[in-house]
């Protein structure tokens, strides 16, 4: 058996037996390196990769965006998002569900964490929908899918991660997520519209709200819009790098938390600890992936895969569809950060060889990853909604299926019209 095969089997076995992803990658990579280069080679590579993997300046935006999300949650402004959106669209049949999608987009605009978004929406919008007599499947499904918008709308930790791994402009990637983020939001709203069109009992109508109350609600959104505008405009105009924008965003979110009155030393330490936990989890996977990636590079495995796939007598779009399908399958069993770190170094050279744009592909991967967040058996957001509300997993999964179909249609649209993704980044300064 070749060292590559042994290392891949070892990796698969360790993952299967529940060994953490970062450990599995590091162990399998180290075993492979030892097999091909011996002890000195292994020690040399561990000594180099362990530090260099995490000292890239661009990586700073990951802890900063995560910290920003924690401070936003601490501030409580995310809770007001749903209330404001509900005042504007709540009167329409299914309006509260549509408001949940809008609140998800709003939360995504100030936080890059999908699970944090789902948890917040589950504790705010879901009880309101259930009180009004919404079908629990419709209500929980829209909450789970709306949470995933945070992965796409800037600031997105997933896109930053992709940019760092793929070594392409993080700024362009973040800006590229804006239009697809709006399209996905619209797709969720339209899906709700179609559901209630065929099943009016799933969602009741609500009473009309005076314009004064509607305009008053916009005031609540002021700080959130300011924070989102600050980050996006700074990146789009080139006024600051994504790293700088992330730090300013975190500081701005800290300011909002202090202003909200929810701030205390204990809450601050707790938010920072959660941020440290998520950051270390992601960065440790990067370290493990670098060790494994080094082994793949030395054995020329990536090169062999790229050569093989490029020579296949298939249309590039067929290969793209197979790759994206693979991402959906992986998304069903693995965490999105782990999938990105594990696959992008191998898949991206193939994508480039097939003639696709890496920025466009990054957005496609994240939209696909959104599906993974709500598809069984793992579907992290579904678990978050279920855990937060005590609703059965089956109900949430059932409610999310129409949105999965809509997401696949969005993927097709973005493939047919790549300009929807590339227009904003191609006009960046």
């Amino acid at each position, binding site marked *: 058996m070749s060292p590559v095969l042994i290392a891949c089997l070892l990796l698969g076995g*360790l*993952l*299967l*037996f*529940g*060994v*953490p*992803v*970062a*450990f*599995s990658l*590091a*162990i399998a990579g*180290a075993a492979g390196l030892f097999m091909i280069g011996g002890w000195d080679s*292994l*020690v040399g590579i*561990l*000594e180099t990769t*362990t*530090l260099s993997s*995490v*000292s*890239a*300046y661009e990586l*700073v935006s990951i*802890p*900063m965006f995560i*910290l920003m999300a924690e401070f936003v949650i601490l501030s409580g402004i995310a809770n007001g998002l749903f209330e404001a959106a509900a005042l504007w669209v709540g009167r329409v049949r299914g309006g509260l569900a549509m408001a949940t999608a809008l609140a998800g987009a709003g939360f995504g605009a100030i936080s890059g964490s999908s699970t944090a978004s789902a948890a917040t929406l589950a504790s705010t919008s879901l009880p309101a929908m259930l009180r009004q007599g919404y079908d629990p499947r419709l209500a929980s499904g829209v909450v789970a899918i709306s949470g995933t918008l945070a992965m796409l709308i800037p600031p997105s930790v997933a896109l930053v991660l992709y940019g760092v791994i793929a070594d392409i402009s993080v700024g362009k990637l973040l800006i590229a997520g804006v239009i697809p983020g709006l399209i996905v939001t619209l797709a969720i709203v339209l899906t709700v519209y179609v559901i209630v069109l065929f099943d009016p009992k799933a969602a009741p109508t609500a009473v009309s709200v005076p314009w004064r109350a509607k305009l008053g609600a916009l005031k609540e959104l002021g700080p959130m819009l300011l924070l989102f505008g600050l980050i996006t405009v700074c990146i789009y105009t080139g006024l*600051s790098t994504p*790293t*700088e924008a992330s*730090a*300013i965003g*975190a*500081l701005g979110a*800290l300011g909002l938390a202090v202003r909200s009155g929810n701030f205390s030393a204990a809450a601050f*330490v*707790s*938010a*920072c*600890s*959660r*941020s*440290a*936990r*998520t*950051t*270390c*989890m992601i*960065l*440790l*996977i990067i370290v493990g992936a670098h*060790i494994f990636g080094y082994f793949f590079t030395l054995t020329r495995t990536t090169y062999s895969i790229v050569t093989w796939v490029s020579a296949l007598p298939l249309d590039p779009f067929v290969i793209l569809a197979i790759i994206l399908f693979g991402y959906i399958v992986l998304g069903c*069993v*693995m*965490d999105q*950060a*782990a999938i990105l770190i594990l696959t992008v170094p191998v898949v991206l050279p193939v994508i480039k060889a097939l003639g696709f744009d890496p920025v466009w592909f990054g957005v496609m991967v994240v939209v696909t990853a959104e599906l993974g967040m709500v598809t069984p*058996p*793992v579907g992290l957001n579904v678990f978050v909604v279920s855990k937060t509300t005590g609703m059965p997993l089956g109900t949430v999964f059932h409610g999310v299926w129409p949105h999965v179909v809509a997401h696949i249609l969005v993927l097709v649209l973005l493939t047919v019209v790549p300009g929807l993704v590339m227009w904003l980044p191609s006009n960046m300064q």
Partner: protein
Amino acid sequence: MVKLIRACENGARYLGIAATVTIMAIIACDVVLRYAFNAPLAWAYEFIGLYVMAALFFLPLGYVQRCHGNIAVDLFVKLLPVPVRSAFARMGNVLAASVFAIACGAFAVKALDAFQSGDEIIGPYIWVTWPIYTIVAVGLGLFVLRLLVQVFQSEATLQHDAAEGDHGV
């Protein structure tokens, strides 16, 4: 001994948090000084990349492992009986500890060498290297110790530690 490791992990975690806040503050100051006074902090980029990012990531590693913060694909293993699942988890810890112990040892030697030789990175600013390697060695050391401690801990203790992390305390 376990209490001592726990205390060290908590200390390292607070240093990691301090590093996170420091990065936020330095970058924000850099941007303000650049646009308001045309006087950016020229040292910020290297200082953060060399020292603070290392502290942010490596120092809390032990705490994160104590809280079971490293994600795993637990879909299939959940089907197994608890003792078997636990045996796999302990085996994974031993193997991971072996790999990261090698890295920890390498960085400890590197830190000592760098300290004795006065190794520096020379550019627009001069940066001594031994503190960087020391941070990495200390962080990895605490991480390896926690991995090994968990091999011998009961399921109840492991669950208790994981729950503690869920509350971010």
